């Protein structure tokens, strides 16, 4: 996936309600090679209208099962609706995909196709 984006010179910026510290922990833990932005005050999330007011979150516990962090205490939090926005060099929005089911993310093939259609002719 990353190599497909690299091929078209597309860099990924990911923003969530996590604080700078939480985002740094997340980036290190999952070995993420992209820019993570922190929006703990939900300024950008509200500006873009991607606020999920009562989303279920499981707070992270300190133990893991088969190498997977276990989160067992559910609570309601405000967080971002999973949304992907593809932007060209001039800041123009070329493609948007939003998930109506928080469990699901933009399909990789869909992202790949959107990038190819957007930049294919000029890549």
């Amino acid at each position, binding site marked *: 996936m990353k190599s497909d*984006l690299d091929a078209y010179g*597309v*860099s*990924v*910026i*990911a*923003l*969530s*309600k*996590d604080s*700078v510290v*939480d*985002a740094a922990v997340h980036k290190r*833990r*999952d070995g993420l090679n992209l*820019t*993570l*932005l*922190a*929006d703990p005050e939900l*300024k*950008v*999330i509200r500006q*873009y*209208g*991607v*606020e999920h*007011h009562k*989303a*279920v*979150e*499981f707070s*992270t516990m300190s133990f893991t*099962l*088969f190498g*997977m962090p276990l*989160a067992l205490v559910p609570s309601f939090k405000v967080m*971002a*609706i*999973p*949304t*992907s*926005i*593809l*932007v*060209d060099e*001039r*800041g*123009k*929005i*070329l493609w*948007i995909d939003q*998930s*109506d*089911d*928080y*469990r*699901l*993310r933009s399909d990789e093939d869909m992202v790949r196709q959107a990038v190819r259609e957007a*930049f294919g002719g000029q890549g």
Partner: protein
Amino acid sequence: MTIVTLSGASLLVVLATWIVYFAKVPSGNVPARPVGSILAQFAGIALAVAAVVVGQPSGAAAWGAMVPAAFGLLMALVFLWLLTQRKTPIGDLKVAVGDTLLSFAATSSDGAAFHTDDLLGKRTLLKFFRGGW
């Protein structure tokens, strides 16, 4: 014996589905319609109920054997409840295809200042996500 078997089976069925289902979460490969997982939760609930109905527990030992079934029942209900929470309130999105990115400033995970002006001249995939857990 019946109680132990049914009670254990209840927890096993539910626990196994949880492991299979949640192992797919980090890679983002959970099924859109987890029919199998849902059926397994109902099977777990049925087994827990069967442990009571068929086994007719009486006495401390028998009720002790019901503990796994209680966990199986609880976990099954949590799983089904979680699925009812899956829909996101889309429709408030403030941007559309063809618009210019709304300008904003934020701080990145390494503490650096970020502004959307930094993106000019670059192709970008901006992703809003729920955050780490």
